[in-house]
């Protein structure tokens, strides 16, 4: 627990406040995205993370700025937890040049190489080989970076998943596999897609440490991620966390949700990661309703500012349509 040494200088309460704030920021951002999408200001596919915030925020606590992240198409939470500026993420939602990917990627392709955030990848399982490669590069160079790779339970059915589990274990690569098991691959329930639904067990079959974690409890996620990252960094090879979580909204913006019961959604909402932490803080006397209200208003203001900035930002000129297909010629 080498990192806890730095944490004791901050109060535990302040840290928990920070976790709450980060989760609430993601929630506020995405709530706004729903409105903006409905109004037609944001288009395309937008996959919301609402309900899963504890995973991104918790795992990020265990990573340093030098570590790498490879993400999926449901990555607003990962990007914001990584500290990517609201303006650049919202700009990307609007497809403006102020976006982190100059608007060319949109919701599913947030990139920030300066923060070693190697992209939202919208092919299920497609990011895993990249994470292997990024980790391999670090290993060949002898750096101490850990590569965190996020993917969903759907990816476990892809061949690439198994190729990558094997390769990472075979080559002892410093990868933390973060499987966000939200129980549905789009509309297909886990048990309808997987013969063995214990995903940690399957990862474990490749000879890497793997265990399930309550993905609705940010403190549990943080704890698990810290111990896994520490082990990876110490040369323990790849580790696998199955983060059991749930998305409260549709797969992408809206769907009729024919594939799951409303009651099931309501049941999971009782374990809303934000409510869960807020309640814990309230019980411990670390948070009042007024605090939460103030935090929420402040974050709403920040998101509104990001929206205003995105609206005002310039669009990429059409003359530049084919820019970034190839790297610019060296001058």
């Amino acid at each position: 627990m080498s990192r806890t040494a730095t944490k004791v200088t901050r109060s535990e309460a302040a840290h928990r406040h920070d976790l709450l704030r980060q989760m609430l920021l993601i929630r506020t951002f995405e709530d706004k995205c729903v409105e903006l999408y409905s109004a037609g200001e944001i288009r395309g596919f937008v996959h919301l993370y609402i309900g899963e915030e504890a995973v991104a925020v918790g795992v990020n606590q265990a990573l340093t700025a030098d570590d790498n992240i490879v993400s999926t198409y449901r990555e607003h939470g990962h990007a914001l937890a990584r500290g990517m500026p609201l303006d650049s993420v919202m700009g990307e939602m609007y497809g403006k040049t102020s976006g982190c990917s100059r608007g060319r990627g949109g919701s599913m392709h947030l990139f920030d190489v300066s923060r070693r955030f190697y992209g939202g990848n919208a092919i299920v399982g497609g990011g895993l080989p990249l994470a292997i490669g990024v980790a391999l590069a670090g290993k060949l160079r002898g750096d101490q970076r850990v590569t965190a790779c996020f993917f969903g339970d759907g990816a476990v059915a892809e061949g690439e998943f198994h190729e990558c589990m094997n390769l990472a274990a075979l080559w002892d690569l410093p990868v933390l596999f973060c499987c966000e098991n939200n129980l549905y691959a789009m509309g297909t329930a886990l048990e309808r897609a997987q013969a063995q639904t214990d995903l940690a067990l399957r990862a474990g079959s490749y000879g890497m440490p793997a265990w399930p974690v309550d993905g609705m409890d940010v403190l549990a996620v943080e704890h698990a991620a810290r111990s896994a990252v520490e082990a990876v960094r110490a040369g323990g090879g790849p580790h696998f966390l199955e983060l059991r979580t749930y998305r409260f909204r549709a797969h992408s913006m809206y769907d009729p949700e024919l594939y799951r019961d409303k009651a099931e959604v309501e049941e999971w909402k009782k374990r809303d990661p934000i409510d869960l932490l807020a309640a814990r803080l309230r019980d411990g006397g670390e948070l009042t309703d007024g605090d939460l209200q103030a935090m929420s208003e402040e974050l709403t203001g920040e998101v509104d500012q990001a929206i205003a900035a995105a609206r005002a930002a310039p669009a990429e000129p059409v003359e530049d349509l084919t820019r970034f297909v190839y790297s610019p010629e060296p001058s």
Partner: protein
Amino acid sequence: MSSTEMVKTTYREAMRAAIREALQRDDRVFLMGEDVGRYGGCFAVTRGLLEEFGPERIRDTPLSESAFVGAGIGAAMAGMRPIVEIMTVNFSLLALDQIMNNAATVLHMSGGQCNVPLVIRMTTGAGRQVAAQHSHSLEGWYTHIPGIRVLAPATLEDARGMVWTALQDPDPVLIFEHGSLYNLQGTLPADAGAVDIRSAAVRRAGTDISLITYGGTLGTTLAAADTLATDGMDAEVIDLRSLRPLDDKTITDSVAKTHRVVIVDEGWRTGSLAAEVSTRIMEQAFWDLDAPVERICGAEVPMPYPRHLEQAALPQADAIVSAARRAVG
């Protein structure tokens, strides 16, 4: 440099020398693929490299094309200069997702943040009686994809010189090595090195007809040109070398001179690279044409095993000669 010593070599050795040079010159370079290390490479291109550079830089991979090609992409994104070998073009389809959805798109969808300086080498083409899952020429498919470069070294010089230049390119480069070329013998200057990867080459200058080809059919096409010469027909032979992007100027300059074209492409005719070349000639050199553009392509059949059928499926010199005669009339 007339005093430069000429050395006997083969295409295989030239390619190996190129990879060795890259590993020596740049410690970001490493090689990975199936059986590239201990086995020495399926086509023995990489034999001896494991001993010389060790298992960290000459990495044998499991049979996981998607994972190791994707790993090459990831490593390139993170600053390395990987060379990934795929055994044959047919197997590359298992990694097509990574090549198309990641290697070719990451630069664009990251708004220019993430380039992918990756070299992927693979064997292509038929001629060795290895039937319908090891013989195809799918490089034309890959030329459809913006974001990557596609090369086809057809000579010893290009086998020796393309790898290094490709590694200097900031974007992904696919190198297609025709399986029938590895044993090609010849001489190279002892100090042969990097070559440009942007232009087509006139392998034989002529005035009466342009024979345009690349890769494995260059030899066939040059043989056809020799036959035509005995008829008094002076054929120009163009080796495309870079299949994407295409060097339009060399092509249209030649057509402006000869007014007649035969395109030779081992790939299937429908939707082929030959079709693309022909279309560009129509777009850019229509007014120079004196006869319809002819194409000699691979027969549209999965490659059969028996030798006589395989040969019948491949572009042959006599077909090129006949097409040239038709065009010149």
